[in-house]
Structures are given as structure tokens and as C-alpha cells.
């Protein structure tokens, strides 16, 4: 691993085939992201990990690291664009952090704190999204979905079940669907022990009957901001 590129002026070593995101994460540098997960193939859809590579915008999770690249990450310009992306995600869904069990453990909320998002800025859409409580052990609250499709990848690639798929068209039409005739999670072979049951970065997929067992102030991102949790993605 002798090759390096520059990320915000710092030399980042990388191995052949690594993306900018993978190399930065392995080196302990945080690049904001939501849809990328180290265990699953990247698809560059949330655009939050957008960096400037030699002056051009690119998603760091799908851009190959190259020797000598000059990459801009946490500049005011990029963080402002990321903030706007976050604000659009917040208004597209129904994200009510005060009563959400995921609060404090939520990547969307933690990223918004990291990027100093102070308000949603845009008008709220208040979409009418369903809650699927048909499964005996898992609740699906699509109000909080950010379409990262990590559940699709985890169920397909890790669990071999294909419980979830993306479907529909348009801003409010496209969403995660359930692969059962009824469209209900309770009619699938999904299990609370599946990898997909714990992959959701927000509060869509949650175990039932477990709410607020960990006090506010003692949760993952209460203790340290998301930018200090890079090692978990690297391991």
C-alpha cells in the first residue's frame, strides 16, 4: 500500500481497487454518507459522500482511488451541499426524532448534527406512508425511510431471502416494497435475527416491544459524534 492520494491535504494510502471512501475510512477519516455500508456493494445513490476529485464532483463510494488525486471532503461548499441533501431527505419523509426509538442511534440524525443542519428549510411533504406491524417481532415504519436500499442488499446478499425490493416511480411513488403476495412483512420468512433486521441506518426496521430501553444521553451518537465512529465502518 504505497500509493497515496490527498484528502483535504492529508496523504491517504490505498490498496489497488479501493474507492476513495474505503481508503479514507480505513485511514480513520470520515466522509459523510448514508447509503454506503462497508459490507455491501456501493451504488452512489444518496450523494451525501460527494467529494471534489481534482476539482470535479464525484461520489466517493464509487470513485476509485488513484495515485496523486487531490480530493476535497469537508469544505464549506461541500458540507453546504450535503446539508441541502439532508434537508431534502428530512422533508421527504416524516422524521419526528423526539418520539423515535432510533433517536441517538440514527445515522440521518447524527449526520444532520455533524453537518450543523439547524432546520428542514424546505416545506415538509408529510407523505402518507404505511406502518407495517404484521410481523410478530419486527415493526416497519416507512415514514422514516430514506431509500438507502441497504435492507434490500442485506436481505439479498447476506440473508439470501430477497424480502425487500425497491419499486414504484416518482418522488413520492418510489419506495421499499415487501416481497410477499400481500405486501406484508408478516407473510415473508423474515426473522428478527436476519442481517437486514439490523442494517437500517434510520428507524424503519426496529424490533418490536423494545422502546427507549437505553436512556437519552447514553446512546451511540450521544456519546460521540458520527465522525468519531469511523473505526466501526473500517472494521
Amino acid at each position, binding site marked *: 500500500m504505497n500509493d497515496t492520494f490527498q484528502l483535504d491535504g492529508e496523504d491517504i494510502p490505498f490498496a489497488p481497487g479501493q474507492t476513495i471512501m474505503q481508503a479514507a475510512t480505513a485511514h480513520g477519516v470520515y466522509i459523510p454518507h448514508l447509503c454506503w455500508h462497508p459490507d455491501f456493494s456501493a451504488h452512489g445513490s444518496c450523494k451525501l459522500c460527494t467529494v471534489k476529485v481534482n476539482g470535479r464532483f464525484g461520489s466517493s463510494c464509487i470513485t476509485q482511488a488513484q495515485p496523486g488525486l487531490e480530493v476535497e471532503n469537508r469544505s464549506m461548499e461541500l458540507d453546504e451541499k450535503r446539508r441541502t441533501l439532508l434537508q431534502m431527505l428530512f422533508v421527504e419523509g416524516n422524521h419526528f426524532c423526539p*418520539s423515535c*426509538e432510533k433517536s441517538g442511534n440514527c445515522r440521518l440524525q447524527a449526520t444532520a448534527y455533524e453537518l450543523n443542519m439547524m432546520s428542514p428549510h424546505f416545506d415538509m411533504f408529510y407523505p402518507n406512508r404505511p*406502518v407495517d406491524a404484521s410481523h410478530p417481532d419486527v415493526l416497519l415504519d416507512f415514514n422514516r425511510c430514506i431509500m438507502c436500499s441497504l435492507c434490500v442488499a442485506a436481505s439479498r446478499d447476506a440473508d439470501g431471502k430477497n424480502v425487500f425490493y425497491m419499486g414504484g416511480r416518482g418522488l413520492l411513488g418510489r419506495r421499499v416494497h415487501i416481497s410477499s403476495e400481500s405486501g406484508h412483512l408478516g407473510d415473508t420468512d423474515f426473522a428478527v435475527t436476519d442481517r437486514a433486521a439490523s442494517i437500517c441506518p434510520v428507524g424503519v426496521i426496529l424490533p418490536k416491544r423494545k*422502546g*427507549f430501553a437505553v*436512556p*437519552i444521553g447514553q446512546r451511540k451518537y450521544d456519546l460521540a459524534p458520527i465522525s468519531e465512529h469511523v473505526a466501526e465502518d473500517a472494521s
Partner: protein
Amino acid sequence: MSFELETAAYPEKLRRVAIDPVSRVEGHGKVTILLDDDNQVQQVRLHIVEFRGFEKFIQGRPYWEVPVMVQRLCGICPVSHHLAASKAMDMMLGVKQLTPTAEKIRRLMHYGQILQSHALHFFHLSSPDLLFGFGSDVAARNIVGIIAAHPEIAKKGVLLRKFGQEVIRMTAGKRVHGTGSIPGGVNKSLSSEERAALLKDIYQMVTWSRDAVGMIRQLFEQNLAEYNEFGRFRSSGMCLVRADGALDLYHGGLRARDEDGTTLFDHFNYGRYWEVIAEDVKPWSYMKFPFFKSLGPDAGSYRVGPLTRVTHCDSIPTPLAEKERQEFLAFDGGSAAGATLGYHWARMIEMLHAAETIKDLLHDDDIIGDDLMATGQRQERGVGVIEAPRGTLIHHYRVDENDLVIRANLIVSTTHNNQAMNTAVREVAKKYLNGREITEGLLNHIEVAIRAFDPCLSCATHALGQMPLEVAIVGADGTVIDEATRDNRGLTHEIHELRGIT
């Protein structure tokens, strides 16, 4: 309670005076007064103008979110809603007995809430009226004026409230809108450091609370006739009492007495509250009007809160507060125990009781235990009742087989007191406003009566879908063109005049 002055015979001919907003209360309310040409009061109504909708939008949510979500009804007594919802969900989960640590942590949280809310209400919101006079200069009649004129009193009020907030923070996780109580128990107990920090100050809080009781007693002695008669009316009452009849603000059975003191029901299982209480709807108010079923909607109105609790219980289970209760009941032949301003006296006795209870709990090792949760056999329904700072608070939920709430009914303290507050302001209006030119100072007398009840207006209007509504379209010349009214009888529409349509 009477319904005199609720509805004037010919309101269109009367002059309208509005107190909007009612100040130094929690939430938004207004009072409308209709006067005839001789300034005689013909109609007085207290309106709660906020719209909340919690009973509706909690439907379809998982039950474990409920204690955290519904507490957002209020920023002053969220702990009461947090705990009432938790108690309801305990019942729904079939948990009949919490672990000792969970029960004592919840009690500590609740009595911290009582302490901070009573301190806030008495010192910050009401003491300006009591110390400066009901009709005193409005510029000074506020907490800033109290700080300037009576800095020691203001300091005690601020620090008592702060201590209560600290108790809440350590038990619930946050000073406001914490998450400490969860269905079946609590998510944390106290650490030894937290316990020591509270123990360091609690004795001072007990002393200051006792001083506050002395202060309201002194005010009564100095203004005996006015305080005794101000907004006075006879009323039924209801509260929780412990199995032995003692005051218990966290748990117990329902006790109700009519205005003559005759017991209507006692130690009644609140899980069947609907057998003894019903709610009436009036077309002019967003708030419902609860009543005792046995007496009917007209005679069955009642009041709740500190005055009812302190006068209805057989004893208070802490020594200093019990001694003060005895003196309160004996004062001037029992006159203060029936006075609207007696609410303040009773409130301070309860604050003393809360401080003593916190002191006792802090000496109990169970509060640093680690057995936090209990389990039981799942039920379909849960009812939780607690004595909130302002009075009896009922939370009632039905939860389906998928763990989602399908029905919610909340009867909050201020709703129980709706008719009582309306009666009190009408009594004050009759006595102080009739035949006089209206001034700000006179109108403040109306607000003083409302403040005696410590209303939590924001949590009192939580229904959705059956809200009475009046809409009037008024032409540029002031004439009413169109009126639409939706009430419990449905939608009625009355077009007075067609304009612009040919």
C-alpha cells in the same frame, strides 16, 4: 355548580370584552365577557383556543412510543403524561407490580414534577397577584417585579423549581421530555453520585417549602374576607387516594364526594373510570365537560387538583405536610378549605409533601437498584391514572394484536376543572365587574381566578374529529353574511344574506 351566565339570552345586543390571551398560565386561552348597557355581566366563558389532536394521531403508532410521544402535550407537566401513559401500558402488558426500584424511581420523578410545577405556578405565575394585589400596576405584576421587590421569595421559587427539574433530569434523562419511564418499568435508576447531589440540597427544599406554606397562610390572614370569598362556589370533587385513604399522587383508587361532602364512590378501580365519569360536549367550547354519571351533566360537574386532594384525603403520609393540612382545615372554621384561593394554600402543602417524599425516597436504597423491568400477560386495554400537579389525569388506550394503538382517550386535569373554572370566573365577574367601568386591574381579577386552578390549557384540547367549530363570514360593513356551525348535533349552516351571486 351553577350554569348561570353561561349563555346570554340575546348576545347580539351586548358589548363584548375579551381577555385574550389569558396570561401567566400554561397554554393559550381567552375569556369572553358580554355586558349590557348598564355594564351588567350577562355572559362569561373561558375558552381554550389551542388545537392539539393527540388522541387521533397516536392511533396507528406502536405502544412503546406512547409514553414518550404523548408527553409532548405539555412542557410544564410532561412527566405526568409520561407516567400516566406508562401506567396504562403497564396494565396493557399485564404488569401488576413494578419492581421496587422502578416504582420508586417513577415516584421520585413524579414528586420532582409536583415540586417544580407547584413552585413554578405559585412563585412565577401567581405570586405577583398575591403579593402586589389583584388590581396592582400591570407593569410590575410579574416575576421580574417579584425579583425586584421580594428577591428572597423569588430566589426560593426559582431554586425550588430548579431542584425539581434536577430530580426529573436524573430520573427521566432530561429536564423536559425525558424517556425514563417505559412500559413495564424504567430505563435507569439513580447513581450514587446523583443521589448524593440531591441529598445535599433536599433539606433546604423542605425548609423553603414549609416557608411557602407559611407565606400563603399569612396572605390569607391579611386578606381574610377577600381571599375567602373570591370566586367561591360549592363543588363536588374527585381525586386518587391510597388504600388507607391517605394522599397518594402516584397511585390509588378514585374517591369522589358531592358538594355536601357525601361520598359518591370511594377506592373505585380507575380501570373502569367510564362507569362513573362521562364527558359532555358544548357547542361553544373545544373542551369537554366531564361529570359524575350518577348526578348527570348539570349537577355532576366536579373539580380536581390540590384543594380537592388535600381536603378529600384522610391524611398526608409525611409529618410536616400533615401538620399543615390539619391547620389548613381548621383555619377560620374551615373557610379556606372551600375557597377558590385555597387552591394555592393546598398547592403549597402538596409542595411540602413532595419535598418530604423526595427526601424519604432519597434515603431508600432501592433507588440505586438495577432491577428495572417487570413482565406480565398481555392485555388489549390499558388505563393509567395519576394525580398530576393540576389534578386527576386519565390515559386510556386500546392496543391491537400487532402492537399498534387503535384508540386513545385522555381526560386531563384542566378538562375535569373546565366547569369549575368557568363557574369561578363567573362568580368573580358578577362580584367585581357588574356595573363598573372595565379596567385592566378588574379584568385581572378574572385571570386570578383562573390561575388559582393552575390550568394547563395546552393539554386540555387534544381531541380531533368532533371538535365544535363556529365560522362567521362578516361583510365590510360588519354584518354577518354567513355562519356555519359544527357541534355535537352535526353541521348547521345559516346564510343571512347572499352577496356577489346573481
